[in-house]
């Protein structure tokens, strides 16, 4: 596989990558300097660090949910696994904090492969419902596995040998930067094209040489690993974690919401989604905690009905008004809009979506 990759040039759409690179570097430098220059205040500063983590997790969820079109309602399983492995290592070993995050991430990625390899052969709703099962089963086991997770009393991390909460801002930024790079790479390389092909039509993709099993496994592993690292980050950030929170269904939902609100399948949409998520969470719901789920539910319904590409879709609309046209395949990242794909309820999976248009016109 690697020889194939090397013998062929990675497809880079010239102008865009250059521009994206410049924007990326400038944004990175600005965000790096922001706390020193602006002096955000402790609260905003810490929330910003947490937002970076949620951005990274949302982007990673989107690799699977958006690029491949496999919506996972069970990513809390990896978030929790990564978090608790990292926490256990921090408590019992002298490993540096970043190593505990990485190991936690890889363990989470491997766990994702364990359940994902068999279930990824399912498409669409079947995969999604299976992930609800994974999440719930993992939560049950984690809650009762006291030796590992501390059960309902949770785990406290030793203070002093990790970064301070103030420093977490920059570690969150590094994490996010790495994830943004991977997002671009996954989407814009030839792998991205293969993933889109899988998302469009698994069988047709296989018929032109794409190995759907392999690429879906790779993406799930990467996604699980990054979400696991985020779990480790979260453990260090909070200095206390308990399984009821880490593995909760609400946690899984948060990744879905971030991805969908921001723009499923887009490269950077989930980063915007994370900001909205945190803003709602911290500033709105702090006053009305009982509206938590309903508000997100309404947001979800609203996005699906009116702007399937979420905030990214809104941005694209604005861009179009100013004469910026995305490439024809750009919209492929998201879900089909009702207009793009003919209504064909009985079409067998994969086949048929274009059949209705057959015939001379």
């Amino acid at each position, binding site marked *: 596989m690697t020889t194939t990759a090397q013998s062929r040039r990675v497809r880079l759409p010239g102008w865009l990558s250059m521009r994206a690179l410049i924007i990326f570097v400038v944004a990175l430098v600005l965000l790096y300097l922001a706390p020193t220059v602006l002096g955000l205040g402790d609260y905003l500063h810490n929330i910003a660090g947490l937002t970076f983590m949620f951005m990274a997790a949302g982007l990673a969820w989107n690799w699977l949910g958006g690029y491949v079109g496999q919506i996972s309602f069970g990513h809390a399983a990896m978030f929790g696994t990564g978090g608790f492995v990292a926490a256990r290592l921090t408590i019992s070993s002298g490993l540096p904090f970043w190593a505990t995050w990485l190991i936690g991430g890889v363990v989470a990625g491997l766990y994702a492969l364990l359940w994902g390899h068999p279930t990824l052969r399912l498409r669409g709703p079947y995969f999604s419902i299976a992930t609800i099962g994974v999440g719930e089963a993992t939560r049950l086991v984690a809650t009762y596995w006291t030796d590992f997770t501390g059960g309902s009393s949770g785990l406290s991390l030793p203070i002093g040998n990790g970064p301070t909460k103030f420093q977490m801002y920059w570690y969150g930024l590094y994490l996010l930067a790495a994830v943004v790079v991977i997002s671009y790479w996954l989407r814009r390389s030839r792998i991205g094209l293969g993933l*889109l092909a899988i998302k469009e039509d698994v069988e047709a993709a296989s018929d032109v*040489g794409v190995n759907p099993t392999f690429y879906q496994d790779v993406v799930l592993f990467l996604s699980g690993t990054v979400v696991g690292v985020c779990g480790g980050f979260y453990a260090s950030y909070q200095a206390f974690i308990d399984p009821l929170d880490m593995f909760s269904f609400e946690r899984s939902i948060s990744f879905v919401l971030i991805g969908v609100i921001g723009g499923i399948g887009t490269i950077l949409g989930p980063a915007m989604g994370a900001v909205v998520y945190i803003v709602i969470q911290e500033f709105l719901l702090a006053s009305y905690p009982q509206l938590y789920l309903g508000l997100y539910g309404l947001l979800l319904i609203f996005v699906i009905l009116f702007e399937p590409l979420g905030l990214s879709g809104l941005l694209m609309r604005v861009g179009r008004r100013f004469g910026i046209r995305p490439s024809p395949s750009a919209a492929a990242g998201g879900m089909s809009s009702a207009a793009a794909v003919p209504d064909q309820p009985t079409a067998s999976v994969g086949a048929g979506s274009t059949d209705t248009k*057959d015939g001379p016109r």
Partner: protein
Amino acid sequence: MSALLVGESVCKYFGGLRAVDDVSFTLGEGEILGLIGPNGAGKTTLFSVAAGSVPATRGRVLLDGKQVSGKSGHRSVHQGICRTHQIVRPFARLSVLDNVLVGHHYGRPGPGHGRPVDHAMGILDFIGLADRAHQLPGELTLAGRKRLEVARALATGPRVLLLDEVVAGLTPVEAQRFVELIRQIRDRGTSIVMIEHVMHAVMGVSDRVMVLDHGRQIAEGTPEQVVKHPQVIEAYLGRDDDEPNDHDEPTHGDGPMGAGDPASGQHAKEKPDA
């Protein structure tokens, strides 16, 4: 002529249905083999077996001495055999160019064919879609989408191309152009097996023709030999009472178009002597 693709007693049963029953065939380098037969004869199933996406019940298919049947579809593509679908399946939200690039990137690894975009544009140019490269497949006519299906398959660098009814449903003029295109593909060095209902198309372009009926091979030879074969004449003309079996083709059974193949009405009218 050395045999490039060899089928050895291929059988595919779906429960009690013998979709393909003990079919053997060979395809020489640079040859075009026509595959005809009434609907439900097992032609598409035979393609699926040869392309690796459906495992054979018995028998096997070899490409250059190496087995291609019974593996997954993508591995067969890497070995150099690629199929198209009767009902075209473009990646609807990828541009025409990106559709072809998928084939290029994931096709048969081998001697590089230059820069991906150049290679893909070269194929689109050859196939007559270069000016449509940045459109979506949905914006093409049916003939255009059939061309795209072939272009995407060609981009995988196949040694053997399996064409499933690429001419069906086209106007006579489009069909004539397509037949010419198939001949050019062969002349560029790709061997071809083609399923076709449009008789004059398949008879005009094929070097040899194989006839299937109810999963069994009932005749094989040059187009001239085949049309005179008594069993072929019987299969095509003598058994109108078979019509209800038309929908047996198992691989497309649940698609709404499975029964609505625009060409399916033609074979009864078109006499094999066309």
